[in-house]
């Protein structure tokens, strides 16, 4: 492999400015939504006392999970020493940091009291998984930041492998923490499974890589830099493997629930749409399984479209949409299904909708807040590649392919 030349983009074109302005508008939309929700109170959203985490959390958890996955490419290069990924490693760290920042922005702005962020930073209950996560998130920023610095600074480059290994271990811990937020909730039928942690790790691989591929394709396309098929096909096949792995975990998750009699009601609700679960079941089958898994798999593995970038773009976009659908089924459907307080009994009347499936529908401010988080992530990437040399000047096959003949 030739020496890789990293080079910041010029970032003076009208297209660049337009992109910055568009993303800025989305961020303003999110801030406006936050003001509206915080000023009136959360009753103006789709959330209530049963579905307490709504659309903002779907976006936020998706981005946080994807952040850890976006670091994959760097991990494969530093930890597993795969040379072909080396040129992409700095960009991978930038995408990871940006996605985490976007996700956290949403989470914080959706708090009932975002003005008390300082309280969250100064009062810790160390038994709370949220408190662990605050440490894991902050640590991620520091460790991945240092990792990026070591890779970009020639004098520190020799230490980048150690930073990479630390970041790899840390990101696994981070996603374990995110999955455990749900996995350790014993009260709810849809959660209460330690498998949530490894499932979230696998989901992070898939979602993070899909976003990374989209960023890579967009960056090279828009800047007119060369991007060869060798790198793209490696990433394409890797994405295919990750999609299959997520499907496997989803299969085992539902299989475990189907085996246990007390969870049959939840599975009928989730898989068959019974007892008021029509909407959630549809999002599962159409959003998560068909659009988010099966079609991307076909697009990735069909020989007819082997080197087609448009299908890879579409497949990656569908993985992102499927990922959001999966987060929706986990977060929203998991809460919409009522708490099983009285096994063997039917609730005839309740002053608090006990025993009823909640029909959540997201309000516009919630969606705008979520999109604003995405926009912040993308803006950080767009800004990052302009100020520092995160992007290789060329990723042509002759540059990246280890088997290419030296010129």
């Amino acid at each position, binding site marked *: 492999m030739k020496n890789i030349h990293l080079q910041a983009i010029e970032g003076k074109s009208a297209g660049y400015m337009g992109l910055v302005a568009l993303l800025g508008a989305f961020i303003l939309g999110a801030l406006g939504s936050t003001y509206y929700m915080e000023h009136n109170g959360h009753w103006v959203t789709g959330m209530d006392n049963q579905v307490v985490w709504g659309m903002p959390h779907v976006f936020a958890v998706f981005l946080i999970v994807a952040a850890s996955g976006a670091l994959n490419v760097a991990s494969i290069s530093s930890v597993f020493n795969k040379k072909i990924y080396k040129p992409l490693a700095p960009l991978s760290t930038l995408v990871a940091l940006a996605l985490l920042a976007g996700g956290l922005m949403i989470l914080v702005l959706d708090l009932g009291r975002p003005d008390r962020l300082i309280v969250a930073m100064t009062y810790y209950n160390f038994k709370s998984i949220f408190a662990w996560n605050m440490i894991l998130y902050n640590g991620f920023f520091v460790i991945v930041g240092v990792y990026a610095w070591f890779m970009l600074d020639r004098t520190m480059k020799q230490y980048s492998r150690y930073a990479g290994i630390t970041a790899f271990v840390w990101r696994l811990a981070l996603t374990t923490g995110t999955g455990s937020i749900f996995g350790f909730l014993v009260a709810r039928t849809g959660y209460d499974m330690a498998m949530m942690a490894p499932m979230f790790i696998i989901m992070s691989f898939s979602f993070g890589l899909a976003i990374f591929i989209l960023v890579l394709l967009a960056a090279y396309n828009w800047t007119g830099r060369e991007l060869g098929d060798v790198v793209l096909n490696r990433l394409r096949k890797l994405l295919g493997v990750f999609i299959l792995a997520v499907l496997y975990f989803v299969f085992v998750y539902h299989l475990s629930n189907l085996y246990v009699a007390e969870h049959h009601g939840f599975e009928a609700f989730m898989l068959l749409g019974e007892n008021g679960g029509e909407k959630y079941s549809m999002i599962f089958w159409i959003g998560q399984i068909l659009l988010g898994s099966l079609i991307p798999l076909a697009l990735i593995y069909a020989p007819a479209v082997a080197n087609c970038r448009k299908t890879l773009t579409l497949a990656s976009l569908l993985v992102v949409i499927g990922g959001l659908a999966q987060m929706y089924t986990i977060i929203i459907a998991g809460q919409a299904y009522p708490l099983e307080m009285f096994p063997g009994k039917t609730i005839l*009347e309740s002053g608090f909708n006990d025993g009823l499936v909640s029909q959540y529908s997201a309000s516009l401010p919630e969606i705008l807040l979520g999109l604003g988080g995405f926009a912040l992530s993308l803006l950080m990437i767009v800004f990052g590649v302009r100020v520092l040399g995160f992007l290789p000047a060329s990723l042509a096959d002759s540059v990246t392919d280890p088997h290419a003949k030296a010129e």
Partner: protein
Amino acid sequence: MNKNNVTQESVNISRRSFVEKSATAAAVFTIAPGVVLNQVHAKPAAEPVSDAKRWGILVDTAKCGNGCNDCVTACNEENGIESHGRPLTDQKWIRKIKLKDNLTNHVVSLPMMCQHCEKPPCVDVCPTGASFKRDDGIVLVDRHICIGCRYCMMACPYKARSFAHEAVDNKVEYQPRGKGTVESCTMCVHRVDNDRIPACVEACSSALIFGDLKDPQSEISMQLEKHGGKQIRADLGLNTGVRYRGI
């Protein structure tokens, strides 16, 4: 002579003091009997809560009136909880539930509120420690450090917590509440600390018994020993402070 004078003076002083103290006591008992009675028995404010007691409530579902809502009304009045006409986002500290057994068709009615668990999941998950349990078993939210993340609502197996989805207009002095924080039944801690019983129990003396679960001579302990009492979701091992008979 001197000795006699001294003795006479001592008698006069002690008689004067006796009359003065009696008059004060009579006046206080006449004007504010409740306050004094509470002061006599209550734990001094400076004294920390101890684990010598564990407060609990026993619900006898056989005596809980189907359609009766007295406990809910009393709780709302006591704690200033008002409906905004939006049942899904209104706060509920206590609600009535009517259940039918799927096999026997037996119907029971019961009040549902914070179960004041010995091992409360809401306390475990709270990132800031706003959700906490007192040594006497009462589970509370410190609404000054609650950030409104709602993780406790995700973790509670009883749907016992509500989020203040909008501004709280009716604030009572002993119950700090506000938009954007989570709240739930406090077992009327402001009453309990003043030797009074919770408002719901006061409103329903037939089906609800309040008392110290650690005192074998308390009525609640004696009733539990005699007739037993079940926990809702006993499988979770939370050791709830609220027990039910007849479910």
